């Protein structure tokens, strides 16, 4: 049987080693108990070492692949791991329910909150249901509705951002995709309760900032935040998609660069092999960071929260990074 794990291009040597380990384990089964135990454990140690090394030195293009990794924890997993009493709320009260953005009420480590985020889905059925995390106007209008609710009941808003971008379709254009995004960004900025945003995978352009104009914006170590996909940027500026790795590096889409530029406030470290290698640890680390940031905001007045948000964004790009 073949190894089932999903390997990225740069992980191929690790995958090959893992396949060898499996083969040796099978041989070990037929050759008698524990025949190759020491070899196997040495190879496993070597494999973990290779993984750690690879993930410690990822370039932006590789990080982008990790950010899009199909096994990376998604919104549903963060909710399951961090939110008690989650009650999903559906619909924008205008046209439809867009499952590319999921949201509702819940409690985060004891605090009552509104929680929402993009959900990409994890198999064919759920990917179609959630439209691969690419929202239509209804998704952003649902987000606005949930923020209105948060404001009325004095609930902090936690968002989890993971989208390639807003869905480019005919219906979306007809129903005001741009207006819906603009209103959602605006609602984030006018919110009178604390808002903590975590980019967990892909922060894709306007579709991302519509849920990420908060008091605190954090990124997971291997997530990306970008004005356009590197592929899209390459096809416009170079007319050549092969230039996408170059664009990934030049556009400064990775967490450390964006921390330096003041676009994000905090980088959340991931487990040695990336969030997908140990989802529980990644989710817990995100939870701890959110808890710490939220604590610093809970005592502030609505005016102070709005002013902090405005100052935060106005300062970006001014100090020279």
């Amino acid at each position: 049987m073949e190894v089932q794990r999903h390997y990225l291009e740069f992980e191929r040597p690790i995958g090959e080693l893992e396949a060898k380990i499996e083969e040796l384990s099978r041989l070990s089964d037929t050759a008698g108990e524990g025949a190759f135990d020491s070899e196997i454990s040495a190879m496993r140690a070597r494999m973990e070492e290779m993984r750690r090394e690879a993930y410690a030195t990822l370039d932006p293009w590789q990080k982008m692949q990790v950010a899009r990794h199909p096994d990376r924890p998604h919104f549903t997993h963060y909710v399951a791991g961090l939110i008690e009493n989650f009650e999903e709320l559906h619909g924008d009260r205008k046209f439809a329910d867009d499952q590319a953005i999921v949201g509702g009420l819940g409690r985060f480590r004891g605090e009552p909150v509104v929680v929402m985020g993009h959900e990409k889905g994890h198999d064919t059925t759920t990917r179609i249901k959630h439209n691969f995390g690419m929202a239509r106007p209804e998704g952003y209008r649902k987000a606005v509705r949930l923020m209105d609710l948060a404001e009325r009941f004095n609930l902090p808003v936690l968002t989890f951002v993971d989208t390639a971008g807003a869905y480019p379709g005919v219906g979306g254009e007809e129903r005001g995709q741009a207006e819906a995004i603009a209103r959602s960004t605006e609602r984030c900025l006018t919110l009178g309760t604390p808002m903590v945003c975590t980019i967990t995978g892909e922060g894709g352009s306007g579709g991302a900032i519509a849920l990420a104009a908060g008091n605190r914006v954090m990124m997971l170590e291997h997530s990306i935040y970008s004005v356009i996909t590197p592929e899209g940027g390459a096809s416009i500026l170079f007319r050549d998609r092969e230039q996408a790795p170059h664009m990934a590096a030049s556009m400064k889409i990775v967490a450390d660069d964006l921390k330096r530029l003041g676009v994000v406030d905090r980088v959340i470290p991931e487990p040695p092999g990336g969030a997908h290698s140990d989802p529980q640890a990644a989710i817990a680390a995100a939870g701890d960071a959110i808890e710490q940031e939220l604590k610093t905001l809970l005592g502030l007045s609505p005016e102070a929260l709005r002013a902090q948000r405005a100052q935060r964004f106005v300062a970006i790009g001014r100090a020279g990074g």
Partner: protein
Amino acid sequence: MSMAEIKTPASGPSGQPERKRGWLSRIAPGVRKIAKRESPENLWEKCPATGEMIYRPDLEASLWVTPAGHPMRIGPDLRFAYTFDDGVHEEIEAPTSLDDPLHFTDQKSYKDRLAAARKSTGEPDAMAIAYGKVGGVPAVVLVQDFAFMGGSLGVAAGETFLKAAEEAVRRDAPLVIFTASGGARMQEGTLSLMQMARTTIAIQTLKAAGLPYVVVLTDPTTGGVLASYAMLGDVHIAEPSATIGFAGRRVIEETIRETLPQGFQTAEFLVERGMVDRVVTRKDLPQVLGSILGTLMMGRSRKAA
């Protein structure tokens, strides 16, 4: 967020038409330029809609609207001249910001692109501010210049937008913006994306001061610009037949694998779909703007009294 399709400024008074390199440039580069300078060709402009050749003085007399009624793209100078009463206005200097924050290079360096755009337009970046009376009402007017790197939104334009809102509040005057943009400036990466939030903050300061914010969408207004300050006006007006859309036409066609109908993503389409209040011709704009701003400001002063 950026639209690939609308890259080259159409020929117009503020942007040099970009020509395909033909046989003449291949065998004798530069000759075309020399020929062009003195040639009467300069007296003629091609209508982007019909292809018809139009006599330049006629175009100037018609505010750069073609006989077919197609408003051609114009830059800040002409827009200020056409918008303010008798063209009288005070220019407000755009704030300076850091050039090329990411040291970005694609086929050309971003620094070179900026230098070229500054040379051809005479403007520091894609947005210019002025103050004067529009239809009798004092107003701050912002103009986005498509000839400057496709009117793309970067840190400099964001700063200019913030400054314009600040000036409007300081002068107790409404803000009117003429939008024209292919979207975000990719050469500034995620910093350009942040301008969607920054300009929205500027609009909040106008709202807090109870001042009108009116958007005039001109050809083209797309991508991240449409998905931020262009869709957050108290009133939305558009010039006839302007291209207005979020996602690029080609991107949508590639996604849905169908050809989009004619008239999709036009000013008239957005009026039909309830996103824009009205289409107004260039000639009528100052009067309509003055009337709308006048009524809103009258209501505001009654509230204050």
